[in-house]
Structure formats: structure tokens, C-alpha cells
């Protein structure tokens, strides 16, 4: 949606993102003591980050072209994601998870490009 050189849309987008992000991080300081979130909201909040991230991961891995579900083992995104899950589960090291799964992904992509 954007071209070269900064666009008006990009300025709106960044201003909006900056405002909501700072607002979220700052809001508790001026309102603390005056306002209490419902308990259910506070408990629900901890599920938000993994749920949001998973909702981004799954389609980008299983539908890499954006429209068709690809569950075949010839899908390098699927292979890479499985490796990332295994690495993350075994070693709990973010850097290792990213590097190893990227290498496997790129390797698979290269192999399938050749074949």
C-alpha cells in the first residue's frame, strides 16, 4: 500500500501506533488508585500475547501463499516451524530457535527449488 518516500498514510499509521503503544504503557501511572480493572479483564490479559502471536504464526506457516492450506511436508514453512517448535521446546533459547529453524527453512527451500 506504500511507495517510496514517506507517505501520508504511513505518518497516520506511525502516529497511531506510537500513541496507542505509549498510552498502554503509561495509562496505569495517572489512573492508579483511582480505577481498578475488572478482575476478569486482568486475568484475560495474560492470554493475549501468545494468542495474538499464534494467530499470526499459523496462517503464515500453513498458508504461505495466503489463500490455500498447505499441509504437505514439501512446505518449507511447515518444516521450519516444526523445527522451531522442537528447538524452542528443548532448549528454551530464542536465538538458537530462530537461527536453527531459519537454516533448516532456507535449506529446504533451496532443495525444493533445485528439484
Amino acid at each position, binding site marked *: *500500500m*506504500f*511507495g*517510496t*518516500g*514517506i*507517505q501520508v*498514510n*504511513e*505518518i*497516520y*499509521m*506511525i*502516529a*497511531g*501506533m*506510537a500513541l*496507542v*503503544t*505509549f498510552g*498502554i*504503557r*503509561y495509562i*496505569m*501511572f495517572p489512573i*492508579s488508585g483511582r480505577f481498578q480493572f475488572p478482575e476478569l479483564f486482568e*486475568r*484475560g*490479559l495474560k*492470554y*493475549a*500475547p*501468545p*494468542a*495474538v*502471536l*499464534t*494467530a*499470526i*504464526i499459523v*496462517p*503464515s*506457516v500453513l*498458508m504461505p501463499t*495466503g489463500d490455500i*492450506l498447505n499441509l504437505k511436508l514439501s512446505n*518449507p514453512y511447515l518444516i*521450519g*516451524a516444526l523445527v*522451531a*517448535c522442537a528447538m*524452542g521446546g528443548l532448549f*528454551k533459547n*530464542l536465538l538458537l*530457535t*530462530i*537461527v536453527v529453524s*531459519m537454516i533448516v*527453512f*532456507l535449506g529446504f527451500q533451496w532443495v525444493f527449488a533445485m528439484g
Partner: protein
Amino acid sequence: MTKHNKVSARKSSALSQFFEGAKDTLPLIVGAIPFGIIFGTLAATAGLSFEATMGMSLFVFAGSSQFVCVSLVSAGTAWPMIVLTTFVVNLRHMLYGATMVPFYKNLNPLWKMVLAFGLTDETFAVAVSRYCQKDEAPDKHYYNLGSMVFMYTNWNLCTFIGLTAGKAFPGISNWGLDFAMPATFIGIVIPYLVSKPMWASVVTAGTVSILAGGLPHKLGLMAAALAGVIMGLVCEKIFHSKKELV
């Protein structure tokens, strides 16, 4: 100078707190370096301008939501939807703010604003453990600031490096670097998976994201996130009441 003489005996001077905060953030910086570089390259290939990409790292300063933004931009999403998605992705930071309220209570509003701006996952984790230590050091906010400044400088530097790399290798968009995002997110999600409700939440979010994938404006993402949160809460209730029975 007098201030320096007063506190130099103990490791509580503002400056040494600042550098200690930066030092303790180092392991997290190592993880943030590839994240930042990949963000810069992906932003360029997604079609964001140089200024917009740098502006995002300078003014938004929230890694995971910046990644999400890039994927939404490359899918042609309208900016109000991107702002709304940023809100949902960053909502967890409200918990960080709430945790810091008692620790920041003696600081003036400017300090509160600066430290709140830098309340990333990494700096929050480092700073909160320092605040919870028993010693009475009066300059713990300088420790927090040191961590924040280090993270911020590194994030912007890495974004710049990524952007430059993207320019130097124009074919970089065909290298499949877009896999770096799901790979990074998988690495972030896995440590969360320590309870049954959390597993249920994540499986639900993943399933709904596929089923609702056809909705316009990436609304499937919102639907999936919401379904995941609700499932987590429901399972919490079920498992909790089961425990009470036993």
C-alpha cells in the same frame, strides 16, 4: 561532585546504576539484534519507506507489534486496522505499567513518561527484578533508564542495519526471510506454554486463525486472538474447579 563523594562508596550512584542496568540487559540485547535487523529488511521488502521504518522504531519502539505491522502492510491492510491490531498486540504492556506503579511513585511525571515509553518486554523483565531486590539504593530508576537506553539504541541501530542490508541486496525479498517472523514468534510463544489453559488458548487461536482467515481487513486475527483469550479463561475456570473437587 559532592553527590559523587557522598555515594561513591556504595554502588548506588546514578551513573553506576545506569551502567549496571545496561550490563544486565546484555543477554536480551543478543536476542534482539537479529530481531531488529530482520525487522529492517522485512519492512523494506514489505514496501514501507525508509523514513517510516526508522520512525516506527524511534517512536513506537515495540518489536512484536512492529513485525505484525510489517505483515499487515505487505497484505495491503488499511492503517486504522494496523493501529487497532497494534493496540491488541501491545495490551500486555498495561500489566507492566501496573506492576511499576509502586516503584515509580516518587518520580516526577517526566521520569514516569520516559520510563513508560521504554517499558518493553526486555527492560521490564530486567528492571522489575532490580526493583524487587531488598537494598535501599535510591537510584534504581537510573538502572531502569540504563536498560531502556541500551535497548532503544540497539533496536534503532539494528533497524538501520537491516534497512541498509535490504537496499544492498535488492533480491532479499526472494530469500524467504519472511520465515524469520514466525520463527521468532514461535520462540516467544513457547515459554508461555506452561499450563493447560495456556495450551488451550493457543490451540484455539491457531485453529480460528485458519477458519476465519477469509474475513476482510485481517479481522480473522482479532477473532482468533479473542477466541484464544476466552478459551484460556474458560479452561482456567474448568481446571480450577476440578482442582477444588480433588
